[in-house]
């Protein structure tokens, strides 16, 4: 079992840390670490390079030395453990994931040496995460984020109702929303806004709206009660009888 710190947890091939995930590509898992395709990060937690991966990249997403030259314009950082164990990691800033892309032994002059092998994988376009790797990441992340939005979105509304101010919340640890209530007599209008920066964000906004008030009751809003919308920000509101 992987030694997760407080606030960290293993989810399939990922260790979810504060701020980013550490994840192994399926190719690296099977071909380099020798695990089965159904294995999780916990199943390879005892491997020397996985221990080094967790130890080094939970603290810093980049290393000090790159694997180069590579045909893809990404920075693959060398992960070194003892004299011979070498890994290649890449910080995927868009998705906030540090990927363990490859593992091998450093044996200068050998055909199996990590560095030429890493370059060969790059030339064959087998080094970077594949569409399947990303699909698995997206499915796992959607599952986690949706479960948290279902709990946290109604709590944000409760906070907005109690404070009487616009409340900012980071649902599921990564999806930012603004929630505000406007009361007029016996009616209240609830407005939820979010900046949609990633492909998943529109889906997460719909989940947040459905978690707060299920059904097609939401109407697009032009502004928040106390301000206009920012570029890239979408807002929806619904009118209901005042609660409490």
């Amino acid at each position: 079992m992987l030694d997760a710190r407080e606030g960290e947890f293993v989810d399939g091939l990922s260790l979810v840390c504060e701020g980013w995930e550490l994840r192994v590509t399926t190719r690296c898992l099977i071909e380099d670490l020798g695990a089965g395709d159904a294995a999780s990060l916990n199943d390879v937690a005892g491997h020397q390079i996985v221990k080094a991966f967790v130890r080094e990249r939970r603290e810093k997403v980049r290393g000090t030395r790159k694997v180069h030259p590579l045909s893809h314009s990404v920075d693959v950082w060398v992960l070194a453990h003892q004299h011979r164990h070498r890994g290649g990691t890449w910080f995927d800033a868009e998705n906030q994931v540090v990927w363990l892309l490859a593992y091998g032994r450093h044996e200068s002059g050998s055909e199996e040496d990590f560095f030429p092998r890493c370059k060969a994988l790059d030339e064959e376009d087998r080094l970077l995460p594949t569409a399947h790797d990303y699909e698995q990441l997206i499915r796992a992340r959607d599952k986690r984020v949706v479960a948290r939005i279902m709990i946290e979105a109604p709590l944000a509304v409760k906070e907005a109702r109690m404070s009487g101010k616009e409340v900012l919340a980071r649902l599921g640890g990564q999806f930012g929303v603004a929630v505000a209530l406007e009361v007029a007599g016996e009616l209240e209008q609830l407005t939820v806004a979010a900046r949609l920066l990633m492909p998943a964000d529109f889906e997460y906004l719909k989940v947040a709206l459905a978690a707060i008030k299920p059904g097609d009751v939401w109407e697009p809003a032009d502004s928040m009660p106390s301000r206009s919308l920012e570029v890239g920000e979408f807002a929806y509101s619904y009118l209901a009888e005042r609660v409490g």
Partner: protein
Amino acid sequence: MTSAMRIPADVHSEVSRLAAVQSVKPGDLLAKAWAEFLERHRNEMAADLEQMAEIIRNGATEDLAEYVSRNAAERGAQAAKRARGV
């Protein structure tokens, strides 16, 4: 209220070019594009919210996550392309 927003360089370049042609600010053009996107997806949004409400009424959060992931294969393919700078 305004704020800085990071967008890909090629999109920024295209938006700036179009804004110059139309004699408007790039930010105003983006805001208009967002509004049009919202309007075009109005029916889809309503249908999705109804579908999600139905799933929530049946009490299955995992089904809701599965619904959100319905385009995961396509999103995964797009993410892999972006990783390769395609």
